[in-house]
């Protein structure tokens, strides 16, 4: 089909064209490489590595915000709903299957006793637990008069931003979340927070 004179009619493309072609291919290669790099970063992040300095999600995002709903049946068969009524509220999340809760509940009962008559209220969320197990747990610890709202599915704990049990949250007189303690709470910390948000001192 091709005549032998054709190469003479059609000179080879100039060097500039060849260079442009190479540049085009290079650009595409760079784009693909960048894309792969971005994907790698995304995959690393997706697997939960949130980078340096990150401590992972905690319930601290609730600080300074209005307290979530806290309502449900209590272990003694009643019903409770938390309403801002001028009292400072300590919300504790516990379960009978949780080891540190064993040490913690007597501490909480003492704090409750110390702060009686100071506009302080202790409400606990008994999370992912059965009422029978929870009651016998309290009975064994000789903890009485503990207001405990049943949370069999754990939804109240999640609503309160818990990352585990036990956890303790302090809500001020206006119903704003103010402080949070992860793990078995220390009486001294709780006293300090209550002093700060009630503006008074506990009986020692």
């Amino acid at each position, binding site marked *: *089909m091709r005549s032998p004179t054709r190469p003479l009619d059609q000179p080879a493309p100039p060097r500039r064209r060849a260079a442009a072609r190479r540049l085009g291919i290079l650009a595409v290669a760079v784009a693909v490489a960048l*894309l792969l790099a971005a994907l790698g970063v995304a995959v690393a*992040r997706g697997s*939960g590595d949130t980078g340096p300095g990150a401590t992972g999600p*905690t319930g601290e995002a609730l600080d300074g915000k209005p307290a979530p709903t806290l309502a449900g049946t209590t272990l003694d068969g009643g019903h409770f709903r938390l309403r801002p009524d001028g009292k400072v509220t300590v919300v504790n999340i516990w379960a009978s299957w949780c080891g540190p809760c064993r040490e913690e509940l007597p501490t909480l009962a003492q704090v409750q006793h110390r702060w009686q008559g100071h506009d302080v209220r202790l409400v606990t969320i008994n999370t992912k637990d059965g009422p029978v197990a929870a009651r*016998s747990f309290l009975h064994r610890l000789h903890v009485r008069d503990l207001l405990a709202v049943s949370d069999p*599915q754990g939804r109240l704990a*999640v609503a309160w931003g818990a990352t585990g049990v036990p956890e303790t949250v302090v809500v001020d007189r206006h119903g704003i979340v103010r402080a949070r303690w992860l793990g078995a709470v220390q009486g001294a910390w709780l006293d300090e927070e209550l002093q700060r948000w009630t503006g008074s001192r506990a009986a020692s």
Partner: protein
Amino acid sequence: MDRIEGGLMNRRRLPFALAVGLALLCAAAAAVLVARGAGQPASLDARVQQVAGTLSCPACEAESVAASNAPIAQSMRSEIRQQLRQGQTPQQIRSWFRNRYGDQVVLLPGSHGPDLLLWVLPVVVLLGGTAAGVAVVRRRRRDRVRPVAAVARNGPRQAVAPWRLAVVGCTCAAVGAAVPALIMTHTASTQPEQATLSSDLAPATVAQWQSLAGSLEEQDKYAAAVAAWRKALQLHPQSAAMRTSMAFDLLRAGQAAKAEKVARPIASGNGSQQAMALLVLGLAQRNQHDPAAVHTLRAFLHRYPHHPAAGQVERLLREMP
């Protein structure tokens, strides 16, 4: 001459036909993935897992809420299930969790830093590809008007086609790779529900089996809970507490005879689980209409008058002949 022209046209069309074919393939692949990733899966369970896959478990190291067996992850799944039932969208549910646990709880790519590249780059590549396509088509039109000039400028056409093909093909491939990758990060670790007792996801330690049994109990899956207790007992056969729990779950699964068999040796022992075992034994006997139930339950009340279940047992005894 006509024949030659036809041959040239075919050669010119080939890269475009290929590019269009590639683009169509990419679009089809993307459509399938989007339909699979973003469409509403049929079951609520699957939708719960999909949302849970986009949230990071706050009590775990590098695990999504869908993949984790931690109590808090189970609770979060309950919450997701409830919110989906109430008609909340995945986006609304994610922002509910973000309000409580901060931005880090959401596993989707963000809108800053290297994540931004992930959003922008595919768009840039797509726009670049389109621009290249338009440029090629324009040049082709010009060539048709001034064939001699085109021949002079381009040389033999087949020499030009490969690099254009390469550019368009790479563009299509990059876009094709980016779209599914983006979708994959959206639905990251959308694994099937716990794969309850499957091989590689199966718990390895006694504590994990215990926790699985507990969570199955909560979902009222007593037969599965019994299976989990059996596994735990294989690793730790001495545990009277686990044996008693298994007996209780057997009872709740409607297998009173088996429950009785498991509970009896513990009930006649003197260990810490005796109260619970007596209770399970008595209830199992009662379910089988065994008159010995009255005797067993009385023995339970006599020995444990302050047990939390004592009131209920008294009521039961009053109802029994």
